């Protein structure tokens, strides 16, 4: 079947089997490999992208369902060389370790902040609970999203909360 859509501002099309998952179309046909597959049940969220502005888990959507849609993947989030505030926040606040969940996590967080750029910690935690991270314990992801929210509001982000105090030789 022929599918056409806009991905990161570019018109793309391809010939796919009807059963082709959107994530496979993006990864295999378009060779945009930043969108990851961590499960096949929508639970991990590593495959999260934006379809018509809404975060969607692309491992449980068919490519043909996205026909005609406006899709944004992690590769299309930055504005040229300028990182999206969420990307910047993840770098500044150590919001990633192995990086595998990161693209999906960033896409979910960006969608959250697009709706509410001043979420409480509780709202952030609930807002990203559809994305699993096995490395960070989410602590620094929450701080990264807070950082991004502050940036989007034009405010100075809160200082990082690293464990800095030099305890000294004991």
């Amino acid at each position, binding site marked *: 079947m022929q599918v056409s859509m806009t991905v990161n501002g570019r018109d793309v099309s391809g010939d796919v089997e009807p059963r082709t998952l959107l994530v496979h179309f993006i990864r295999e046909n378009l060779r945009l490999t930043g969108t*990851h597959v961590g499960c096949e049940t929508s639970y991990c969220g590593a495959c999260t992208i934006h379809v018509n502005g809404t975060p969607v888990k692309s491992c449980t959507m068919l490519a043909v369902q996205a026909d005609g849609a406006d899709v944004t993947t992690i*590769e299309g989030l930055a504005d040229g060389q300028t990182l999206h505030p969420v990307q910047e926040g993840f770098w500044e606040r*150590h919001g990633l370790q192995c*990086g*595998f969940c990161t693209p999906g996590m*960033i896409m979910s967080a960006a969608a959250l902040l697009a709706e509410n750029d001043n979420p409480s910690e509780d709202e952030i935690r609930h807002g990203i609970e559809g994305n699993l991270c096995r490395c960070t*314990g989410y602590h620094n992801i929450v701080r990264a999203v807070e950082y991004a929210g502050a940036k989007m509001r034009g405010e100075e982000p809160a200082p990082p909360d690293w464990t800095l105090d*030099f*305890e000294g030789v*004991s």
Partner: protein
Amino acid sequence: MTTTTSAMGGIVRRREDPALIAGKGRYVDDIKLPGETAAVFVRSPFAHARINSIDTSAAEAMEGVLAVYTSDDVTELGPLLAQVPVGVMRPLLADGAVHHAGEAVAMVVAENAYIARDAADAVDVDYDPLPVAVDLKEAATDEVKVHEGAESNVLVTWYSHDWWPGVMELEDHRPAIEEAKQRDDVVVVSQEMVNQRLIPVAIEPRAVLADYNTGYGRVNLWTSTQMPHAIAAAVAKTFGLTNHDVHLVAPEVGGGFGVKLNLYPDEILTVFASRELGRPVRWTETRREAAYSSIQGRGWVGTATIVGTKDGEILGYELDALADMGAYSQNFTVAIPVLGLYVAQGQYNIPLAWQVSCVQTNTQTTDAYRGAGRPEAIYYLERIIDMYAAEIGVDPADVRKKNFFKHDEFPATTAIGLTMDSGNYDHNLDTLLDDVQYADLRKMQREALDEGRYVGIGLSTYVEVCGFAPSVLAEFGFGWDAYGLPTSFSGSGLVRINPDGSASVIIGTGPSGQGHETTWAQVVSDRLGVEFDKVRVSHGDTFESPVGVGTFGSRSAAVDGAATYEAAEKVRQKAAEIVAHMLEASAEDIQFSDGGAHVAGSPGHRVTWGEIAEVAYKPHKGPEGFEAGLEAHAVFSPGNATWPFGSHLAVVEVDPDTGDVQILRYVAVDDCGNRINPMIVDGQIHGGIAQGVGQAMFEEAIYDADGNLLTGSLVDYPLPTASDLPAFELGWTNTPTDVNPMGVKGIGEAGTIGSAQTIVNAVVDALRPLGVKHIDMPLRPRKVWDAIQKARG
């Protein structure tokens, strides 16, 4: 106060991140080769069955299918190699019988994964189901054998007084403990506890891409592994190649946690199929499949016992446990409990009688999962200490302190004959208790109870053993001899000043998110004064990196980091000779900083690293007779392991009507020695705690009586989400170690080892007024609610 700097102990944003946050990281599944094919496995629906026949004809006839392989095709390549060859090794594909559900029976290779999946469904396997041994205690009775004809399901029993027969001569503490139990001024507290089986779940499933070029006689292999050199060696050994002829690349690795610390059949079979078909072969694990195709962890049932005085002096600690090995012995499987034994007495100077039997069952193999034996060991110890404290009515913090090894007792010898070089446990626990204002917390707890709220405070201390050493432990089985990599747990690093004055650091580790590219650059920049941005680090490629054993056991900084530090030192010494020649000074007076070198006392008299490099690579410009080039390789073999430790505390509230547990606070004070980058250390602790909390509250691999895994997907194997966890409060103490030149100890597993029992202790503490004494993990609401009902009668 640490400042934001790239120096040692400073904070710098990670090198790894720009690619990863932009979707430009390259994991195995992101790499594409021309002409590649896809493999899919046919897996057993039975936990134990004879295979009467396998009919592959329908699958082979499907368009796009290239081959279907069964055991007969690969017999000479197996079984899978294991370091401690006790029990039954895993065949590459089931050979006449299957021994756990999900065991690979056949491999289909096709033009793409969709076709291969369809063809796998068309492979017809005729099974005769056999009785299964799934429950650990039942398996230990040998009523049903996991492997027909095997002598026993019990493979080995590790005893604390005789864990390395013939090498370690140790005192048997059992008679003294038995004698103590007979005294009339003691209490004996005993509890059977389950440390449940877990599925590690690195978010990146394992993936392999093999390209065997028989023209060059070389295998190119991309695999998501924590130990590039060891896997490369195993592949070379299996196919009769030299170490050099397997070029293995572990690119970005999306989480490890031990699940990628193993050789797997797919890593052999994709190479085999590539050789046979003359095309690259890819296999990517699905999440559901990962529960069968990758190792699991933990899975112990044991009874812990403390005998002690009524004022808190512990006279003996016993553990009698069974550990579930699953159906086959893989990399370290039966040795994992020994890692628990290393820390069996935790921070306490107490008599120890420990025995753990390794039992095979008709389930997936277990092996190292974050902590590997140590979380299990500390769980039993710290739970039973809490129960003992409750029994005698003494505060659990006081009981712990009463039995600590004291600061002036170090170096301290453990009951199993190991030497802990350093420790300051009182200070560490006091730091935690002061930080949380422990007395006030207890007061708050009492006031909450007066209002009918069940708030609990849980404590745990722990000792971790990292950077396994000395080298002789390789002879016990903690090495990779079986894989054809006869090394110990030494570390390696190579430092090169490039002709443009930048530095390359090439390491033998296999990181999966630990930030080695950043921290190693800090170490080398700090030693050499090369600007941080000009120190570049690479790893994971066996063609370029020095031989190293990988990233596991919280060892990388303490061992490979130390090797890199020493390699930098060698470079510094040679560079000092060059600079001395350039500046007509003495090499002893040359100092390196800020992108160059100068003569001590005259900072204006300096050269840049670019200028030094030019001389280094043009021998006619250098000192008479010197060897051109400027690089050094170092291997670091520590004389002892490191012994990090810490204290954790959780405050929870339990809803007695629903059994729901809320974590109100989680505070951890860890002592990992010096920190290269505190930001990264914090991150390791956060993630470690989350995995321990996951075990305490959510995660459990459940098999039914027939050996079917009921929790193979993330739908029924819940990982902690952001909304399940609190913000973590971290503190730090620093007790120096001189085991390595940087004084670093390791932090990768600390959070996991410290946390599960901290949560359980807190929940039981909350429910003690209702009469609850113990609840087995995971503390899901239903289980907590049931325990409350039972206690209430």
